[in-house]
């Protein structure tokens, strides 16, 4: 279905990534947000708190990130589309509720505008060091979706995508921004509402008598109801059967956890969004995401000017990881160069996916600024040797 025009600020804007992200959420139909202030993400909810009273929805500033990350899930079960916004230290506090959203299949969106860590780290400066935390941060086995925009325009676009994917797969979706993308101001084009696709909630058409809250459809995703509709349903973070009742036995656990994981893993190709250039003749492929992809672009251009056959693979979707794509490329390229604003996180997945068929060169950065293009150029030249 199309976006509700009341939330869509159609036009050409000159705004930063944080503000664009908020507009993306509004366009996607988010009508509830709970937040706790943290640099460099706060502008997103500041804008939301300013915009939402005239759109028709609610913002509440909670007492901490634990509260914010569960209040949004209460709102979802009350019928709203909802999201929260944070950065490193707050993201750490939200981990338990990412797990709760996975287990209860609560569609919701978490925005993490990454800054340098560990701990309080670099509050006002960029990093991409929460990438593995986004994937593995909550306890237990699961798969989820994480997107990585590299411009304010993509902050808008991918936030909409995040909401749509969360509804389609009933999974929490992470939008992994970083301080530079969040605070970078560029042109953002917001289309007409009728040109924005919004995934509706998978609300059941079954009667309360026939409905089982956790009976999966063919794609492994169950249908949903909201509180106050007469279904008298139960939701729990405990291992549960298709009725939603706690059933803590190894067979129920096996069936549930495998389904939660496979509904995402098996849709890897449908979920994944990538930008590629010159992969056909590449001997070296630069794999990058977020702000680093823009520095990498310069490094790639410099290398090509020197005659190196270098290709680009930009991950707009980092999780689920494009394992098959990397594996296929690994058969015919010499090396992958992976620059990221951390000491080597996504590179581990690249290395794993190559299965030893190509070299992997990690271009690390502890955070606080971005790479210099020359660092990436040097790594490409080294890899091409």
């Amino acid at each position: 279905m199309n976006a509700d025009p009341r939330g869509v600020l159609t036009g050409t804007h000159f705004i930063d990534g944080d503000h664009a992200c908020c507009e993306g959420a509004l366009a996607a139909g988010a009508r509830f947000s709970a937040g706790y202030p943290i640099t460099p993400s706060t502008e997103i909810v500041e804008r939301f708190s300013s915009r939402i009273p005239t759109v028709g929805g609610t913002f509440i500033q909670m007492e901490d990130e634990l509260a914010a990350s569960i209040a949004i899930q209460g709102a979802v079960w009350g019928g709203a589309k909802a999201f929260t916004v944070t950065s490193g230290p707050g993201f750490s506090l939200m981990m338990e509720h990412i797990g709760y959203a996975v287990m209860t299949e609560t569609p919701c969106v978490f925005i993490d505008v990454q800054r340098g860590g560990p701990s309080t780290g670099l509050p006002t400066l960029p990093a991409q060091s929460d990438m593995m935390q986004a994937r593995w941060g909550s306890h237990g086995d699961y798969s989820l979706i994480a997107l990585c925009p590299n411009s304010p325009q993509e902050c808008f676009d991918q936030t909409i995508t995040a909401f749509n994917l969360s509804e389609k797969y009933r999974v929490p979706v992470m939008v992994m921004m970083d301080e530079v993308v969040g605070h970078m101001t560029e042109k953002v084009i917001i289309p007409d509402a009728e040109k924005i696709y919004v995934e509706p909630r998978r609300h059941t058409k079954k009667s309360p008598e026939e409905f089982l809250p956790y009976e999966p459809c063919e794609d492994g995703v169950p249908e949903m109801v909201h509180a106050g509709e007469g279904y008298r349903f139960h939701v729990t973070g405990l291992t549960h059967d298709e009725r939603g009742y706690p059933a803590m036995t190894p067979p129920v656990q096996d069936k549930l956890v495998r389904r939660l994981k496979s509904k995402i893993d098996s849709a890897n190709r449908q979920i994944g969004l990538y930008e590629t250039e010159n992969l056909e003749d590449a001997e070296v492929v630069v794999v990058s995401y977020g702000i680093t992809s823009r520095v990498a672009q310069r490094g790639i251009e410099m290398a090509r000017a020197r005659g190196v056959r270098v290709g680009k693979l930009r991950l707009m979707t980092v999780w689920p990881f494009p394992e098959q794509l990397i594996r296929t490329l690994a058969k015919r390229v010499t090396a992958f160069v992976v620059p990221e604003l951390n000491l080597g996180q996504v590179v581990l997945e690249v290395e794993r996916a190559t299965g030893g068929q190509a070299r992997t060169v990690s271009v690390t950065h502890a955070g606080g600024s971005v790479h210099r293009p020359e660092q990436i150029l040097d790594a490409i030249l080294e890899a091409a040797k």
Partner: protein
Amino acid sequence: MSLSTIAPANPVEQFLRTDRMPHIWCPGCGIGTTVNCFTRALIDAKVDLDNLAIVSGIGCSGRVAGYVRLDSFHTTHGRAIPFATGLKLANPKLQVVVYSGDGDLSAIGGNHLIHAARRNVDLKVICVNNLIYAMTGGQTAPTTPADVITSTNPYGTFDTSFNLPHLVEAAGAVYVARWTTYHVRQLSRAIAEIFQKPGFCFIEIISPCPTLYQRRNKMGDGLDTMKYYKEKSKVKNGAPTSEVGLDKQGEIVVGKFVDRSRHEYRELLREQMQNTLGSRYVDPVAAECAESDHETAAGGCEEGLCS
């Protein structure tokens, strides 16, 4: 002669997920009694069950949500109140009950408890206080009185415990009462009463944990605890909450301590927005109705809310 003539159905049964019985609670535990009182209150207050949601945290009392045939949410440890806050604000027509234990609500969830009371969010909080962490094996809770043996204070507790009515009154609750599981009629009446009371309401129910509290402290079984509640409870409606703290074997002051009026969170929000934004303010309830029409999604709004 039909079976129902011989044994008329228990009026409470309609509220229970009987397919989940037997429950996990121990013999002599008070939680079942509180559920009985809760369901009686639903009958007496004529609560619209299709617009009632119950939210629990983790622990023995956190299991209540799973046993009642209502829209029910068993959330994470300590976070029933913020979940309920999101649920209530997104769907204001719901009556939202938070049903959980003392450890869940006042230790790990203590920050949420005071802030929800401060905001005066329209939540009905029922706190079953068994003075201990029961589910995990009888560890010290913030509510455990001094000189009590617990599994983590094997030589006796010594630090000061929370006086929950005093805490939530100070934080801003509009209704605060305490009863024990001996006071079933008073408790049912109190629960029925808070369904008519807008704002943050808090009922503390003192309840035995014979398995881990009474037995470990040589205080007898569930029946002995009932006798203790009967003998040592003193009804003092309107008592200053600063004077209702509990100790190991002393008097238990019960009654309705606080019943006052203060604008509820959503009223304050709406008023503020209307004062500052005027006609530009879009009430979320009205907006949700319009959207449901737009989407023709199931489960929309009821007539009268869209005025």
